[in-house]
């Protein structure tokens, strides 16, 4: 593959508190703001507390999930008195960091999240964008104390619903397990290190380095599985099976247990072998998702370097 060039990555945004109870991003952004971090070498940095109202009450959101408000449709919807806070906020953030899909948008937007699932350190991308994938490869090589993985959402930009879709080359950093409303030092240190490595990579990129070609594995979500529920009340009637709990990214084969009902029955996985992700994420109960299932894919990366004018 020929080496691919990209313009200098000179403006980035680091966002935390997109979900107000995911504490690592909240505190990391606050720390950066306290220390007035706005430029590191060649990279100018905006630090943004995405959902300040949700952060204030330590809830995921106040009216609707902010991280689902960035579709083209919602970003262009007219604002009325009944428009939920998060839809308005999404449009503000789009004006500040976007507009989505335009030349004016930040080069890179890194959105910091936590999950109650045992996902380790996981970078989440929309498309097979070589820049974030090279950063992923770089972080994976640098950080050996924690599993580092990548998840890809196969969705066109217009339907892309999350905050990171505002930037030209973006990704989310999702780290768990951490309960909502809790700040763990080990998780904080992992996220801080990942952010530091990202900024270091950008410096190297902007100074003209070439990043070698290679291959990375990423997990592409193909479907989601809901909890077994009572047909009348809709209440869940089983919990994630102990053999699946905390085993995100471990291949699930047909016949493997996935749920254990409150009356002791085991529900087993049927269908193809797939990788479970976001197993028992708190926020997904209301979205009717017990876990996602993904295929593992290999992405070939060309070498990349900065485009010189």
């Amino acid at each position, binding site marked *: 593959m020929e080496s691919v060039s990209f313009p200098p990555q000179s403006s980035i945004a680091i966002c935390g508190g997109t979900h107000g109870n995911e504490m690592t991003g909240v*505190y990391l952004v606050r720390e950066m703001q306290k220390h007035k971090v706005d430029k590191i070498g060649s990279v100018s940095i905006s630090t943004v507390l995405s959902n300040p109202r949700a952060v204030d009450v330590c809830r995921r959101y106040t009216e609707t999930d902010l991280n689902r408000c960035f579709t083209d449709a919602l970003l262009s919807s007219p604002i009325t008195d009944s428009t939920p806070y998060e839809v308005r906020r999404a449009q503000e953030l789009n004006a500040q960091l976007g507009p989505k899909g335009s030349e004016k948008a930040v080069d890179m937007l890194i959105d910091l999240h936590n999950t109650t699932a045992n996902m380790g350190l996981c970078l989440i991308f929309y498309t097979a964008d070589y820049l974030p994938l090279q950063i992923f490869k770089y972080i994976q090589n640098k950080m050996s104390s924690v599993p580092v993985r990548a998840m890809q959402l196969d969705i066109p930009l217009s339907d892309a619903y999350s905050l990171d879709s505002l930037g030209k080359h973006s990704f989310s950093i999702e780290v768990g*397990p951490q*309960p*909502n409303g809790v700040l763990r030092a080990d998780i904080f240190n992992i996220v801080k290190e990942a952010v530091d490595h990202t900024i270091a990579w950008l410096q190297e990129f902007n100074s003209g380095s070439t990043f070698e070609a290679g291959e990375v594995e990423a997990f592409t979500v193909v479907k989601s599985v809901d909890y077994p529920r009572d047909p009348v009340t809709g*209440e869940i009637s089983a919990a994630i*099976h*102990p053999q699946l709990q905390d085993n995100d990214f471990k291949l699930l084969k047909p016949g493997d247990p996935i749920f254990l009902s409150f009356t002791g029955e085991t529900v087993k996985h049927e269908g193809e072998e797939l990788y479970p992700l976001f197993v028992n994420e*708190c926020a997904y109960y209301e979205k009717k998702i017990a876990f996602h299932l993904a295929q593992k894919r290999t992405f070939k990366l060309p070498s990349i370097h900065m485009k010189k004018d």
Partner: protein
Amino acid sequence: MSSYSNTARLTEARRVAIFGGTHGNEMSGVTLVNLWMKNSDEIQRKGVEAKPFITNPKAVEKCTRYVDTDLNRAFTPENLSAPGGDELPYEVQRAQEINKVFGPKGSPEAYDVIFDLHNTTSNMGCTLILESSKDHFNLQMMNYIKKAIAPASCLVLLNEHPLLKYSTSRSVAKHPVGLEVGPQPQGVLRSNIFEAMRVILKHALDFIELFNEGMEFPSCSVEVFRVSERIDYPRDANGNIIAMVHPNLQDCDWEPLNPGDPMFQTFDGKTIHYQGSGTVYPTFINEAAYYEKQQAFVTTRRETLVASAIGKA
């Protein structure tokens, strides 16, 4: 006051309540109580009326700890007698209703036993919470449970501290028992945590049945961890947290913390050490709900209590 060789004669524990959803996002209790309200076979015992009950339904519906104020701090004498009806905070109204049904607190009509089911984000494992070191019925029950689930562990936390003790939902009963199982995130139901709580309740109800049928329980020693001190996060002048529970302390509930051991870590990696005068046993380490209560963890001291022999009156 019975002497060492005498058996304390206690009345039968006939009316037993099982509270879930005192905090609406602590899912084991919510799930167990809902299950037993639909089908109570599992909690039936001869000579026992076991009533499962959701204490804070509005909080359960919103999957939040509380709506206006923490129900598990609301059972103060002031709240229980406060006039004001609908204008009172929701949980104060609930406390008054619960006191009417399961109390009145302190009266002969109060329920004999209330089990209050809780989860914690702390790595506390299975913990039984005792409110009085002189409750020999509870001490015997806790001894029975500990022996029944061995080698799995179930520790006893005693909160008799004059300042740190609080007015719990279960305090309405003659024998209040807190069940605290963790670690589990708020809003999440983990199968292992759910089943552990279920097993503890099974043994607790077995004990009550045996006692009511006339079994006598000889005097025994029970190891407890007595609440000593609340330790808050280091904060700046504006009240913002400036350090996190240190990685060496995180998840180490019930392990000894010695003077000089790492306790907090600042955001730029510096260690703050424990400066106490002796070894303590920390618990409720990094409980999500306690950030707003200015508590990073509590320290406890190990103690052995002696439970009198007990038998039915």
